[in-house]
């Protein structure tokens, strides 16, 4: 299988521009990463521009979470480069990347169980000066009123959805320039899921932030995505704009049929 | 059998004397005391030309005071040591495991282990140079009685040695008629013994019988002192080590220490030529023994260890053999007093006398050595004050007969 040779950021930008993308805020090129030095994701390049909502899709075990773990610095890169806002952050530590404006809501392990809701939110605002934390926390609570009543509760004593909500709110407290959400709608009731995607995610993009979204409920993700990547077996196999994905007649008819809530096709058994 | 240690009488190369004892662990002081006797003894022998022309080496074996650790080490000793002429030490804690192995391998043992189990032992190769622990305990009773004490308290740690002496103390008290007002057992190395101290004070004894390790003693006596009740204490022979004395002396204060504490130990005449020889030999090995080296001079355990080595060597000379199987039967011959025997105080003198065809009685640094049929040598006990580590001041002697008479 042909793999791309070394790609410089400028080439990348050129390619992206032609494809009708915005200038990348985060550009990851030739990423190879995995666990214990054994690659799971191989030679993947993706980018997110400010104002974009980029969706990553793919079957279970495709390497989506692994890829974003490499972007946030949770696992080391085996190859490739991560450039954030023109600066190479490939070697930067996780907390360093967070300070530079990458927010991250992991798929699992997304809150501090032994801290209260309030304290969790405060931790989200760790990068702010002390006196500003309060206002950021309050803003986040405004967005998710469900958390207000739970402020003093330990995070381990939340329901699944409350917990996910808290995780998202915590990431918002940091007011990141790039927010990475790994399956944010899981465990969320439809109403909150839709708030998250349409108000929060869309709102961030409108406000000029970059959002990288992983969704297994593909249709839901596509509602807001401006660009989509399909990942499988650790490689990107396909990418297209959100419009294009939505426009494909087969997909379109499917979404219409199912009210757009999720992509649950019902197939006959093979 | 294959188990005899030295097969040839005409051994080649140096002879090996083992010290099988705990150098580490809770009873590590035994190892130091053994070293304090064996090293000078061997040095004296070598200085006098060795045994039948052979030089002697020392092989220390650290049993850690743990029988399970001791077994493979002793087996290894027997397996890997050529010309093994004997074993010294055989400390209290693991003696019961080691003795059978060494005995069946035919290694002569010179021990100061206090176990009452050996009071009637049938081990052919085992010789004990110090009285058993309970004799020491009874001597304490007798001394207290002689001082007119009526109300006594025992304060013993739970270590092996302490538990060996305690039965003697208790059984002795029945004979002396003193009243036991408190029997306190100290779990070693606690940060405080406040409750025990309070209890002791409440019982209002006139004197304390005691044996505890240094850490325990420091804490216990400082608390006793800080509550203003530091009364007279009588200790066992295990307290005569410089590290114990230093630690406790500092905690009590120098003059208090001397005033309060009396120690009972096997009596050792200080002025015999044997003592002088021992002191000289000790000086030649001062870098090899626990410091300060002078402390071992008056230590009954060290004296016993020293005597043990000399006795072995003299027996070998008398038997014209370095094989334990052969010389073991000559041991009594060089120690027993008897009419017409030449009394010798040093190895060199003994060898000279034997060469001259005389029968000898070795009179040791720890006094005369008289083995009974169970190979035990008893002796007088002595009460003493400790002024500095190498300066003990005898104040009374408790004759062996009185101790035996007590039960």
């Amino acid at each position, binding site marked *: 299988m042909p793999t791309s040779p070394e790609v410089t950021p400028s080439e990348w930008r050129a390619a992206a521009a032609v494809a009708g993308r915005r200038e990348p805020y985060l550009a990851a090129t030739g990423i190879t990463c995995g666990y214990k030095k054994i690659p799971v994701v191989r030679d993947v390049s993706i980018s997110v521009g400010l104002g974009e909502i980029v969706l990553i899709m793919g079957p279970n075990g495709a390497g989506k979470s692994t890829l974003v773990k490499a972007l946030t610095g949770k696992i080391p890169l085996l190859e490739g480069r991560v450039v954030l806002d023109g600066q190479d952050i490939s070697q930067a530590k996780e907390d360093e990347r967070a300070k530079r404006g990458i927010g991250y809501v992991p798929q699992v392990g997304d809150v501090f169980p032994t801290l209260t809701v309030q304290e969790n939110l405060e931790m989200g605002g*760790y990068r702010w000066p002390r006196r500003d934390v309060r206002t950021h926390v309050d803003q986040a609570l405004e967005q998710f009123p469900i958390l207000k009543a739970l402020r003093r509760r330990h995070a381990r004593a939340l329901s699944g959805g409350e917990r996910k909500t808290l995780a998202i709110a915590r990431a918002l407290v940091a007011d990141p320039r790039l927010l990475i959400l790994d399956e944010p709608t899981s465990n969320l009731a439809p109403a909150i899921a839709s708030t998250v995607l349409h108000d929060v995610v869309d709102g961030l993009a409108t406000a000029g932030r970059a959002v990288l979204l992983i969704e297994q409920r593909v249709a839901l993700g596509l509602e807001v995505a401006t660009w989509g990547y399909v990942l499988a077996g650790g490689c990107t196999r396909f990418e297209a704009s959100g419009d294009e994905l939505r426009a494909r007649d087969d997909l379109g008819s499917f979404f219409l049929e199912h009210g757009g809530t999720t992509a649950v096709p019902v197939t006959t058994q093979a | 059998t294959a188990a005899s240690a030295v097969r040839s009488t005409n051994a080649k190369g140096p002879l090996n004397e083992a010290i099988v004892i705990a150098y580490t662990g809770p009873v590590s002081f035994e190892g130091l005391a053994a070293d304090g006797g064996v090293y000078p003894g061997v040095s004296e022998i070598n200085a006098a030309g060795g045994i039948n022309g052979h030089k002697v080496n020392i092989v220390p074996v650290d049993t850690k005071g743990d029988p399970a650790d001791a077994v493979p080490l002793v087996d290894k000793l027997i397996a890997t040591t050529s010309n093994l002429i004997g074993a010294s030490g055989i400390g209290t804690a693991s003696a019961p495991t080691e003795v059978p192995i060494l005995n069946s391998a035919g290694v002569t043992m010179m021990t100061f282990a206090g176990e009452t189990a050996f009071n009637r032992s049938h081990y052919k190769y085992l010789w004990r140079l110090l009285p058993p622990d309970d004799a020491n305990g009874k001597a304490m009773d007798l001394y207290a009685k002689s001082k007119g004490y009526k109300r006594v308290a025992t304060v013993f740690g739970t270590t092996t040695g302490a538990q060996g002496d305690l039965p003697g103390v208790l059984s002795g008290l029945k004979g002396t008629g003193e009243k036991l007002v408190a029997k306190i057992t100290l779990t070693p190395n606690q940060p405080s013994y406040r409750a025990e101290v309070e209890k002791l004070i409440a019982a209002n004894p006139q004197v304390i019988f005691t044996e505890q390790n240094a850490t325990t003693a420091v804490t216990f006596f400082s608390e006793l002192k800080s509550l203003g009740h530091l009364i007279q204490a009588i200790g066992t022979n295990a307290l005569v080590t410089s590290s114990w004395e230093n630690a406790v002396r500092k905690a009590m204060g120098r003059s208090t220490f001397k005033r309060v504490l009396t120690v009972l130990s096997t009596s050792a005449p200080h002025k015999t030529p044997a003592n002088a020889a021992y002191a000289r030999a000790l000086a030649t090995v001062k870098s090899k023994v626990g410091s300060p080296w002078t402390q071992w001079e008056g230590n009954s355990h060290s004296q016993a260890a020293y005597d043990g080595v000399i006795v072995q060597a003299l027996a070998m000379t008398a038997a014209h053999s370095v094989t334990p199987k052969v010389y073991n039967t000559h041991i009594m011959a060089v120690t027993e007093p008897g009419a017409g025997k030449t009394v010798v105080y040093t190895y060199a003198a003994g060898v000279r006398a034997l060469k001259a065809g005389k029968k000898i009685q070795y009179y040791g640094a720890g006094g005369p050595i008289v083995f009974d049929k169970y190979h035990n040598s008893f002796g007088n006990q002595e009460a003493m004050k400790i002024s500095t580590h190498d300066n003990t001041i005898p104040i009374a002697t408790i004759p062996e007969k009185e101790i035996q008479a007590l039960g």
Partner: protein
Amino acid sequence: MNVFVQTLGFGVVSASIIAVGAMGFTIQFGLTNVLNLSFGGVMTVSAFVAYLTEQSGINIWLCLVLGGVAGAVLTIFLGRTVFKVYARRGTRLFEMVMVTLALGLVIEYAVDAVSRDQIYSLSFPEGASYHIGAATLTESQLIIVGIGIAVFVGLERLLHMTRLGKALRAMAVDPGLARSCGIPTNRIVNATWLISGFLCGVAGVIYVLNALSVSYTTGVIFLPSIIAAAILGGVGSPRGAVLAALMLGLVTQLVAAAGFSAYSSIAAFGVLVVVLLSRPSGVLSAAARKVELTL
């Protein structure tokens, strides 16, 4: 009766000694998830530092601070040079316990070698005596109790009121997530080591002030009580550690006063077992079950 009152007062002193160590231990265990059995070795070293400085005639309370500093320095040194290396290699909880144990052995016997296997005793003026109720306590004992209280108040405030404290707690449950929040976990871990090391050192010194002798086994002998108090109180909770230390201190002294001195520490440990049994769910939290080393 009087004996009991006396011992009660004294139980508080023992409790304070245990509590200081247990608080140091508990925050290290709670925040880095390392059940650090080399803690005993560090206490010994600090105790020796205090002994040596005391020998050179420095005021004993200054020695206490020096001992604490020694503990802090040694702990952070070990943390950075030893524990971290293992954590990077992905050493897990249990193996780490074994590492700390081995390290404890190394320290213990290094001290043994340097101290020539000897016991060193301190003669330290105990100062005036005070009668509090029926109990008599010396000045230094009162100061020890004071230290215990001060450490407790300080730690509680630190953990629950300050940002550093909250970050410490956050990191304890999920270091990865903490990092992705931008918390500089490295610095925070260092802070933990410094604090717990300092407390460990202080504990070693006040233990020796009470027992009045120090040898290479001092810390190892003291360690079980500290671990017991830390666990009884719930790992990571200074409040719990203090309560547990009080319980252990009083039980030990009362049982001894009742005449079962051989069983006093046994009784104290028995309390631990009983309490752990009666509230197994209290110490079992879903979050805490899957602990990850935070180094």
